[in-house]
């Protein structure tokens, strides 16, 4: 029987203490890795959400707020931009394209984005990937396009009817059921908030809210045919935000200033990348705080192990004397205690990693639902291994204390069994 096996057998005889110690270490390991993992995953998830858009413009508000509601559909726009202002900038020099976005409604908890065909043309995510249709095609007036997750969770496909509710709650008492839409297309999965949204035409959105309701709707043919001819007649009085693509990227900073100082209406223009950075700066303080907290939790776990091992030494003096009597030297006793602590630490680490993966599998759907960000569950990364290494080293260092104590005890006690 090797020393390590002996240590294990001894630990097993003190099962409840050992299990509690392992659990304490496991929880701290889960926290320590989880903080790192969640922040990395959200970071890359968020960074992949939008690309190719040079500026996002909304009514005057905080830049992070604008980014959150326009791209992630988190929170609400503070104010609208008038259609006239939007038109002004749409036709401005240097601007290659714009995409209008109007928010505020929902379909059973999924946000409704009022926009037009340009969304499918210009929106890019990840590495400049355009939106693809899994089925169907972009909407015309009276249609809706749904994201992959909406289709999956609501069990909808092309040709189905859709009723939009007022407000963004999952339960709404005011449904626009006088204006049902037909699903014209389902988008390919992107792993971004796009999957969680329903896309409708601005004009439909307006009609749901009573705009142009007095107009005879006429036949659908008429609406389709003249879709583009109403340019002078706004499809909707105001929009929440618009995405801007420039002819030359370096101009973004100048145009941003122009937009921010526009006199006719107070606007906020942001560069998505910069604002994401800003968001991370806000979050990184939080992340650091969490890391510090989890480091302390680890320390608590290890002190728990220290306490358990030290307390066990008192009741194990007989065990030590027996080992001494059959020839175990003080160094062997020292190594035995170290082995025990290492076994506890490693078991704690393994359980901690298992807990981490369990949590990720459990939480990934929730994160996707809440933030539209897909958490990919991969193997352990190098920084995570580094953190595990720190745990192991810390466990080893802590174990030196009881090991040294046992070493001293076995020297002074010798073969006498002081109880």
């Amino acid at each position: 029987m090797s020393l390590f096996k002996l240590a294990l057998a001894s630990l097993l005889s003190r099962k409840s203490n050992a299990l509690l110690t392992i659990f304490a270490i496991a929880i701290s390991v889960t926290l320590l890795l989880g903080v790192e993992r969640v922040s990395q995953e959200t970071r890359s998830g968020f960074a992949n959400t939008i690309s190719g858009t040079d500026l996002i413009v909304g009514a005057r508000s905080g830049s992070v707020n604008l980014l959150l509601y326009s791209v992630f559909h988190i929170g609400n726009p503070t104010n609208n931009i008038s259609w006239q202002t939007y038109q002004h900038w749409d036709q401005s020099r240097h601007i290659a394209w714009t995409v209008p976005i109007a928010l505020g409604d929902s379909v059973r908890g999924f946000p409704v984005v009022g926009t037009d065909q340009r969304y499918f043309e210009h929106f890019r995510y990840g590495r400049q990937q355009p939106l693809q249709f899994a089925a169907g095609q972009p909407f015309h007036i009276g249609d809706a396009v749904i994201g992959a997750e909406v289709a999956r969770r609501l069990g909808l496909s092309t040709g189905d009817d859709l009723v939009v509710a007022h407000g963004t709650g999952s339960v709404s008492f005011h449904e626009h059921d006088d204006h049902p839409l037909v699903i014209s297309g389902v988008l390919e999965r992107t792993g971004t908030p796009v999957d969680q949204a329903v896309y409708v035409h601005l004009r439909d959105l307006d009609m749901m809210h009573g705009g142009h309701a007095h107009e005879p709707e006429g036949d659908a043919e008429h609406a389709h045919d003249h879709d583009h001819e109403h340019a002078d007649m706004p499809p909707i009085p105001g929009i929440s935000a618009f995405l801007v693509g420039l002819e030359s990227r370096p101009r973004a900073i100048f145009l941003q200033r122009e937009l921010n100082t526009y006199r006719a209406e107070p606007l906020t223009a942001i560069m998505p990348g910069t604002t994401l950075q800003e968001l991370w700066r806000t979050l990184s303080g939080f992340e650091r705080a969490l890391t510090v907290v989890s480091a302390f939790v680890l320390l608590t776990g290890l002190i728990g192990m220290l306490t358990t091992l030290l307390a066990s030494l008192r009741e194990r003096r007989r065990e030590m004397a027996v080992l001494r009597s059959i020839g175990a030297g003080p160094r062997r006793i020292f190594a035995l205690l170290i082995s025990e602590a290492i076994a506890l630490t490693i078991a704690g680490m393994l359980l901690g990693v298992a807990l981490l993966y369990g949590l990720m599998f459990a939480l990934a759907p929730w994160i996707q639902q809440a933030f539209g960000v897909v958490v990919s569950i991969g193997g352990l990364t190098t920084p995570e291994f580094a953190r595990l290494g720190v745990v192991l080293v810390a466990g080893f260092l802590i174990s030196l204390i009881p090991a040294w104590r046992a070493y001293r005890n076995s020297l002074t006690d010798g073969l006498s069994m002081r109880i």
Partner: protein
Amino acid sequence: MTDFSVSVRDLAYTWRGQSKPTLNIDTLTIQHGERIILRGPSGSGKSTLLSLLAGVHDVQDGELHVLGKSLKTMSQSQRDRYRADHMGYIFQQFNLLPFLTVQQNVLLAVEFSRARRERLEKAGVNASQESERLLTSLGIHNQLWHKPASELSVGQQQRVAAARALIGAPEILIADEPTSALDADARDNFLALLKEECGRHNITLIFVTHDASLASHFDRIIELQSINKVALEVHS
């Protein structure tokens, strides 16, 4: 010197933090294969002498030879190995690791000592066979071999401890009041088995006891009081 199993000359030991020695013996010799009782009241330096014999503590003054080798010149780890190889030790009680099985407890002594392994090899038996033979001859039924040691009675535990001390035939067996927790029947039975096993391999038996009725089983009684000069001073 090599004639003796144990030989002591002018051995003195002072515990740390004490001004006077606990033990001070001019001469003491024990022959190979001799069965002796070591007797003395508490405070007579008995456990100090046992610790020194077992090589747990340094020899400070004088000479202590065990099987012809001076323990004084050995390092702590050399003495630990020497004890593992050449001495069996039985405590008053709690000899076994409760979380190991009976047989694992016995085999532990072999795993800690290469010399014991080699002796078994030379005799042409493997360790687990020998442990089974010893357990059987000490009256431990094979149904108990794979039970946790904690499930045994005190008497059974002492016999398992004897099996562990004896496996691989060490030259010396030190038993520190091994029968004090046993009733008279169990004690006589234990002693008979111990004597028999020691006789097989000519093992020197150093047996600590207060029980005068056991004297007939032994070659000689050493009264520690009469050889420890420190004790003499105290008691005279």
